[in-house]
């Protein structure tokens, strides 16, 4: 994947119009800086050359914080109109069935409108069969129960290993085309063989694994599994649709105002200029909210049919059943290594099921995280009669990290080496080296051997608790959505508006846009009105794959810079200076030791406002497109009960120069906590005889809560990363990649035996734990009453 990125992302700006400048790159305070030559579009600002800047790169309160903490931020769930109808979706209770008939006869009498997708069968529990809208939520609920669907139930297959067997009920009769969405791993798509329910293997890699294994002193092989994880955004998928003549305006809980716009226009067959998508506040997404969804199309169709606005909100059960998930996986890794811990070859295979969808591969981490010279990856999707998987925060990577990092720990064990020493042997990245060192210090990695001894003493004393330390690496990629454009308008009265259609899903892009704009104009951030979350504004990226900041911020900076230069033209005569010598600082224009007030200059503009547009220039060449991170964890395992508590996580990451440091730290903490939850708790439970999802709630589908939260130390390393004028990169994905892997390794350390399956439930800890046969049990043997 990184190889693809290296080739695919970088494009030179045509030399005739571009300006060549020299940029220093490197990790601040660590690696020696290097100089590269880059091409800037005409008039664009030169890349940042210092860490200490007036507004960006610093801590700052979130701009929309006051709206959010007072309940005034309006999400799609909150949109309400007089006369609005409430939409609901009727869903299949069966995993696989023909739809024989649908009796809607009672709906008309109830005053309920309905639409029906054109389909003759359902392929998973929760697949949509019909949608309706009624004047109240209660009536809509009654209406759902007034519809009678006759199903012809057919055999289903829901378990990965069963679905792979010849003769398993087929999910699709013919080979399927793979759809890509904005949050997919870049390796998705392409032609792949399909036999039965198995689509694959898709083979990729680098080097020559045969040669690599020949060079190895020894080999080891591990098979590890992961469970299906659902996204569980606190705001479920939802869409409000309102027609004004032939124009459709929707509010959507989405990670992509423009992806929803495109999808609605395409599916409904209406021109793009007739669709407006608003997503001012979005209650989380994590990869599941790129499209309009069938529910969104239903809302639009129902609104059209009823001639009234329709708000359709999925309930928590529907969210679990049909709104996406991170696929499960069975991963096998064979590693060839030398006695000094150097890995010479990796053969990695993954199979997984995304239900009726594709995209389960977990091999990218094996190819891209370390410097393994020879890697062969084979990935297969297996279709099952289950709800579709989709992109989820760093698709494939937490699973891949879990597998590869377990193998590296196994190599360390086999060679009698410290696990971190094995990482150093195989990790050529200077950035990651600094991260390993900083985070190891924060967790107290040097205690590891002493902890091993303390665990032995605890076992000898018959005590139940053990401690473990573990580590793992993060890798992700600088992925850019091309074509982002930002508009800055400065008005005669001195007010400033910055506009882009991008949506705020929690990462804080609204704040980042405000800070960058204000800084270029020498203003406090309060002086800038940030307008985002609407497809009527210039094109912006969907928020997925850690693309938002890197795709948008350089364009924001360019737009604000262009506006500043236009204003400098106005200010120059006042200061008796050339425009190019005018700088903007402290609400003023400065040159020649003279100062002109912002308001005074703005009042002199010739028109009512100055408009400037910034484009996202193609990425600069010459730097590594990967994002690195390293995390360490400290866990306590109760060997009597199998309960694991994560006490502390140290997370070191680098995302170029942080645009808004507060947000970067919050995102790292959030990624870590999702990783803890994934490692310990999350698992979809399917009833095999019926294929039904048994825990579509947030009670028996367990997610981390307040009392499961460890201390999290965040370490953000500043990196002059190149690539764009702000050295801006994302952080959402890398933060979640290593956490579960590090926890599994820490639990393995605590137990003295390897954890091979996620989530790390009490049942699994107890079965993995030879130390369970502790003196506690020996003591029992001397008692009167013993039943084994």
């Amino acid at each position: 994947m990184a190889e693809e990125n290296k080739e695919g992302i970088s494009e030179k700006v045509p030399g005739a119009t571009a300006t060549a400048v020299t940029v220093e790159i490197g990790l601040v305070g660590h690696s020696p800086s290097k100089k590269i030559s880059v091409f800037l579009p005409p008039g664009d600002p030169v890349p940042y050359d210092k860490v200490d800047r007036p507004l960006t790169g610093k801590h700052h309160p979130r701009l929309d914080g006051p709206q959010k903490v007072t309940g005034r931020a309006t999400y799609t769930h909150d949109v309400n109109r007089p006369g609005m109808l409430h939409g609901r979706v009727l869903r299949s209770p069966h995993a696989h069935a023909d739809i024989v008939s649908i009796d809607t006869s009672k709906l008309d009498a109830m005053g309920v409108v309905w639409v029906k997708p054109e389909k003759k069968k359902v392929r998973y529990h929760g697949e949509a069969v019909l949608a309706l809208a009624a004047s109240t939520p209660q009536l809509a609920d009654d209406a759902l129960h007034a519809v009678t669907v006759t199903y012809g139930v057919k055999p289903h297959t829901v378990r990965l290993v069963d679905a792979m067997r010849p003769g398993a009920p087929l999910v699709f009769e013919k080979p399927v085309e793979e759809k890509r969405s904005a949050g997919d791993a870049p390796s998705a798509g392409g032609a792949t063989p399909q036999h039965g329910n198995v689509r694959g293997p898709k083979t990729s890699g680098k080097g020559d694994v045969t040669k690599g294994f020949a060079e190895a002193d020894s080999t080891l092989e591990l098979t590890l599994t992961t469970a299906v994880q659902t996204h569980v955004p606190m705001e479920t998928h939802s869409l409000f649709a309102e027609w004004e003549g032939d124009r459709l305006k929707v509010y959507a809980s989405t990670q992509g105002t423009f992806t929803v716009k495109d999808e609605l226009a395409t599916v409904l067959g209406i021109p793009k200029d007739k669709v407006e998508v608003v997503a001012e506040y979005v209650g989380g997404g994590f990869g599941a909210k790129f499209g309009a969804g069938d529910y969104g199309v239903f809302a639009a169709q129902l609104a059209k049919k009823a001639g009234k606005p329709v708000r359709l909100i999925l309930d928590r059960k529907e969210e679990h059943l049909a709104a996406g998930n991170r696929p499960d996986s069975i991963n096998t890794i064979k590693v060839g290594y030398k006695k000094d811990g150097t890995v010479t070859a990796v053969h990695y295979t993954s199979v997984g099921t995304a239900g009726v969808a594709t995209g389960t591969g977990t091999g990218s981490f094996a190819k891209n995280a370390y410097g393994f010279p020879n890697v062969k990856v084979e990935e297969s999707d297996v279709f099952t009669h289950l709800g579709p998987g989709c992109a989820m925060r760093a698709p494939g990577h937490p699973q891949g990290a879990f597998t590869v990092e377990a193998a590296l720990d196994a190599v360390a064990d086999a060679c009698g080496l410290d696990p971190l020493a094995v990482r150093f042997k195989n990790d050529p990245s200077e950035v990651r080296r600094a991260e390993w060192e900083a985070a190891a210090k924060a967790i107290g990695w040097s205690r590891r051997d002493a902890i091993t001894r303390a665990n032995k003493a605890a076992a000898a004393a018959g005590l139940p608790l053990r401690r473990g330390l573990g580590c793992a690496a993060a890798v992700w990629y600088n992925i850019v959505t091309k074509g982002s454009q930002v508009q800055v308008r400065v008005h005669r009265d001195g007010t400033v508006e910055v506009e882009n259609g991008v949506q705020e899903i929690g990462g804080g892009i609204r704040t980042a846009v405000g800070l960058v704009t204000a800084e270029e104009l020498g203003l406090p951030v309060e002086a800038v009105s940030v307008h985002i979350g609407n497809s009527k504004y210039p094109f912006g990226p969907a928020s997925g794959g850690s693309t938002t900041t890197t795709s948008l911020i350089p364009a924001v900076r360019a737009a604000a810079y262009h506006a500043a230069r236009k204003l400098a033209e106005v200010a120059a005569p006042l200061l008796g200076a050339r425009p190019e010598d005018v700088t903007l600082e402290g609400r003023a224009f400065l040159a020649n030791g003279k100062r002109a007030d912002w308001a005074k200059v703005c009042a002199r503009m010739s028109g009512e406002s100055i408009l400037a547009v910034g484009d996202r220039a193609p990425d600069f060449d010459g730097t590594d497109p990967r994002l690195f991170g390293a995390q360490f964890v400290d866990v306590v395992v109760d060997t009597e009960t199998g309960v694991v508590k994560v006490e502390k996580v140290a997370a070191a990451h680098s995302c170029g120069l942080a645009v808004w440091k507060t947000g970067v730290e919050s995102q790292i903490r959030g990624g870590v906590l999702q990783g803890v939850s994934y490692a310990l708790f999350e698992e979809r439970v399917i009833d095999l005889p019926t294929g039904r999802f048994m825990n579509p709630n947030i009670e028996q589908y367990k997610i981390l809560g307040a009392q499961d939260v460890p201390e999290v130390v965040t370490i953000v390393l500043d990196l002059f990363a190149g690539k764009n004028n702000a050295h801006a990169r994302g952080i959402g994905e890398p933060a979640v990649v290593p956490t579960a892997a590090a926890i599994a390794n820490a639990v393995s350390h605590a137990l003295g035996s390897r954890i091979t399956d996620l989530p790390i439930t009490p049942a699994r800890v107890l079965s993995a734990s030879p130390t369970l046969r502790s003196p506690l049990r020996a003591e029992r043997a001397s008692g009167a009453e013993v039943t084994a």
Partner: protein
Amino acid sequence: MADRKSPNPPDGTNGVTRRGLIKGIASAVTAVSAGATALLVETRQELEAANVSGLLSVSLTLNGTARTGGFEPRTTLAEALRDTWGLTGTKVGCDRGACGSCTVLLDGVPVNSCLTLVHDADGKKVTTIEGLGSPEAMSPLQKAFVDADALQCGFCTPGMIVSCSALLAKNPTPSREDVRSAVSGNLCRCGTYLGVFEACHAAGNPEVTRG
């Protein structure tokens, strides 16, 4: 500055004035046959006069203001707050009492408004997130949430703050452990918990230096 355009009218009535609704009783009556579940009125007498079958009156003190409405018995407090009274700061994340996004104070005590029938709040005081402060006049706790960046997407945040406000009312100087248990019925998927612990602790212990 954040874009403050709201798709809903700012007065919290979803575009229908109270007067308009009272006038609109006749049409509401018509709508009942098609399933009207709520009606805003000034007094119980008005509701009785409207004679809407199936609706029972509720009078309560909402964020300090007396409110009366007629609701079907199966209406939850969360639905009444959000859909009828326009107070959408109270969120519904799971509708089963597991996530705490719908937390409100009922006579000062945090409860899940999704698991409370609106009629069970009759005669009681209900405080929602809107009653704790406004963007222009945030409470010290709300301010502390912003300062500690105790929010990301913000959807769980109102419930978190309502839970923390009840803790502070009872225990003005809570430890971080106290905060942990106070918000143990509030789930956050973005992972803002550490900020929440910090914010509530700092709001209750103002001498604590903030990082």
